[in-house]
């Protein structure tokens, strides 16, 4: 049932963020005379600078691995990851609720406690970003229903300290390929609306 990573997908590619073009991979797939000229000419022009996916700096150095090892599950904090449209972030109250008992003196935990006291939200940096300009409405629970595991898109967060992006989730070609291979809808309106 579980479909983790579609076959034939190169993993961990270096890609530019954002709405980037991907001439190279296309070339691998469809290297006929059909598009040869265009690859050389236009794709190069349209290709943006390639860079590694940056790991954003978080206001609090949250350690995923420690929490998972302590027995928490992803959905404990990201409550909507399986049942909701958005995975969501835990409320400050929820963090503080546990940490009132657990290591309340840890310097990073102190930041949470302070935020809770001041009734201030915490501004977490997004790790996996689909730009607003793409106008994509991703639905977590539809993917969970289909048996797609978290790590397919997010990588093995359980072994990370601060979450890092492992895959450019803004790469539409990747989405479409997976959809086609799993016979999910390839209608534009499935995501864009």
């Amino acid at each position, binding site marked *: 049932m579980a479909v983790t990573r579609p076959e034939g997908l190169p993993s961990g590619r270096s890609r530019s963020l954002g709405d980037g073009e991907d001439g190279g991979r296309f070339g691998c797939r*469809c290297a006929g*005379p*059909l*598009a040869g000229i*265009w690859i050389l000419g236009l794709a190069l022009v349209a290709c943006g600078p390639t860079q590694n996916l940056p790991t954003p700096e978080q206001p609090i150095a949250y350690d995923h691995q420690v929490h998972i090892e302590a027995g928490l599950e992803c959905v404990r904090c990201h409550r909507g990851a399986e049942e909701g449209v958005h995975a969501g972030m835990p409320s400050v109250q929820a963090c503080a609720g546990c940490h009132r008992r657990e290591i309340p003196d840890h310097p990073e935990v102190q930041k949470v406690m302070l935020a809770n006291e001041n009734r201030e939200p915490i501004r977490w940096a997004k790790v996996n970003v689909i730009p607003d300009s793409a106008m994509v409405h991703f639905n977590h629970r539809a993917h969970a229903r289909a048996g797609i595991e978290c790590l397919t898109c997010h990588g093995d967060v359980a072994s990370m300290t601060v979450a890092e992006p492992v895959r450019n989730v803004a790469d539409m070609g990747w989405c479409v390929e997976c959809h086609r291979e799993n016979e999910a809808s*390839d209608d*534009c309106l499935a995501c864009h609306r």
Partner: protein
Amino acid sequence: MTAAGERHLVEAAYERVEDMRAVVEAALESGIAASQIEVRSPAPLEEDELPLPKPKSRVLLFALAGAVLGGLTAFGLAAGTALAYPLPTGGMSIVAGPPVGVVTYEGTALGLILMTVLRVLWEGGLLPGRGIRSGRGRASDLDHHVANGRLLLRVHGLSEEQAGRLRDSSRTSAVEVG
């Protein structure tokens, strides 16, 4: 002719074709091969103006080949890509004949034009890195005569004796001899 020692080049500029014609005829008679003779003119010369063999061109052939290639590329682009990456169209045709025809038509024309020009430049030695064999096409000190409407005769690969003779015969009618 090439390896036998130093070869000389004689250049001469003429005001009129008639002047040059006499020199060329004399040179041919003296045993100089037509292939050694290079004529530069400010405008195309008629076939019979000089007793030299007519140059050959395969531009037309390449043009037609370009047309075929361009047409195929455009067809592939318009029809092939749509078939390879079908978009949901809700039952409407993914590849429609007339639009593909239009794109193919334009591609054909583009291929033809591009190949024609490339071939013209190729044949004329005008593409970067491709000069005419044996130093032809190099700039000459007398090129300004061509620019000003005169004709330039260049005879390559002459022995010193041939060169001297040619120079002498040219001096009478030529504007300048180099």
